């Protein structure tokens, strides 16, 4: 999915580059870009929900889910968002919407089956914090600014060349514009991913503050990530034969490069941050 997102954005940046290089005026390009942005701004919610197969549920259809969200909204002092459920066994939850008033929170049926009530509450509080922090709006605006920056750089290259001297040779200029817009896009993509990771930490923190139970979120994260072998189910007596012999530490996963491009911080970092919060809560933090 990451590659898809990246390529989509690259196509967008290259399209603008092509439009400029093909000689359409700056105003036309700005109008086209602006129109695309507005379309994205107003319809991305519906597109996201539709693509996940999410359907809005009434309190009669999903009473426990609605109750949990009601309680969280009272605690977080938020207007109640629309509640949707996506029928898929993959456990996941997400929130869409530019503002708390127009937001929708969605949980998959896999998530509802997997988590205990406390853990579900923690995950939904994380999503509600995203709504409260207007993260969708922030990321949309940030990505818009990245597109604008790319646009300006391309304009600079095109018209800068014109003022500088001969703009006879359209060939190399065209390619340079494309390259530049691609590079600016790539840099802004990496920065946007970093921003997204920061917002995830903030949402984790928000969940801990709303529920007062950071450990519930830790346990939910482990279950969702399918990493339940982190806190094992196997009995000690069954495992003791092999373990006693070697203490090979699990190899540190080499995630240095891919971590630049991920939208979410690695599980270990999120758990460590939540454990610090729990220690502060318990008054044992040093």
């Amino acid at each position, binding site marked *: 999915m990451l590659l898809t997102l990246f390529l989509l954005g690259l196509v967008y940046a290259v399209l603008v580059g092509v439009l400029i290089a093909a000689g359409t005026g700056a105003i036309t390009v700005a109008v086209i870009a602006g129109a695309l942005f507005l379309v994205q701004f107003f319809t991305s919610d519906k597109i996201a929900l539709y693509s996940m197969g999410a359907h809005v549920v009434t309190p009669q259809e999903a009473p426990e889910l609605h109750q949990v969200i009601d309680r969280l909204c009272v605690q977080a002092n938020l207007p109640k968002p629309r509640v949707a459920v996506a029928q898929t066994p993959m456990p996941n939850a997400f929130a869409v919407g530019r503002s708390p008033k127009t937001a929708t929170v969605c949980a998959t049926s896999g998530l509802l089956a997997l988590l205990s009530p406390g853990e579900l509450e923690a995950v939904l509080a994380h999503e509600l914090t995203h709504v409260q922090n207007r993260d969708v709006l922030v990321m949309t605006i940030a990505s818009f600014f990245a597109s604008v920056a790319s646009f300006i750089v391309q304009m600079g290259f095109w018209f800068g060349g014109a003022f500088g001297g001969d703009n006879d040779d359209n060939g190399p200029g065209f390619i340079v514009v494309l390259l530049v817009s691609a590079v600016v896009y790539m840099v802004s993509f990496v920065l946007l991913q970093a921003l997204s990771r920061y917002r995830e930490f903030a949402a984790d923190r928000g969940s801990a503050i709303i529920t007062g139970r950071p450990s519930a979120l830790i346990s939910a994260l482990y279950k969702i990530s399918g990493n339940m072998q982190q806190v094992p189910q196997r009995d000690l007596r069954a495992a003791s034969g092999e373990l006693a012999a070697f203490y090979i530490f699990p190899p540190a996963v080499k995630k240095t490069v891919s971590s630049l491009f991920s939208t979410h911080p690695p599980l270990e970092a999120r758990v460590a941050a939540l454990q610090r919060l729990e220690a502060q809560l318990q008054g*044992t933090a040093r």
Partner: protein
Amino acid sequence: MGFLDVLLGRRKLAGPAPDRLFAISTAYVTFETSLGIETRGVAAIVFQPLATADFESIVKEMEEVVEATATDSGTKVESSDDSYGFRWLLLRGTSFDDLVVGINAVSSALEGSGYGERVLCAVFAFEDQHKRPLYWIYNYKRGAFYPFVPAGGEQQRDTEREFVLKAQIGAELPIEQELERWFPLWGIPI
């Protein structure tokens, strides 16, 4: 386990690390005073018996010794086998410190007679203010404690409360840092 041992496939079972066991005696003060956690008056040591006459006689001797010292302090000793083939030596008494001393006596006896690697773990049973059971398990081979809270249902554990307990006790107990080694003990007889 050195590099050569890994290459040549030599397996050596690790011996017990008993020195850190007594940390739970000092941690118990914190349990009682600030966390409201009390002992249920029972602790157990789990070891893997060998089917040799030598081992059986050692275990018998050790049980007699522990019984002798135990009756002074009012501790009762009983032993039972479980479905995994491990033996549980249960100590019941009112004084938590005596329980810790008794457990240590057993592990030292086994170590002294050369069967130290057979010792798996020690389990201490507690309950919180709401009378819910919780256990602290001491893994002899790692020299570290970890909490275990069984939840209702077949082989369910309440990992959230385990993380909370870990945060509550802070640095007072040497706690197992690797979560993959927080192995549960299903069907604990204490």
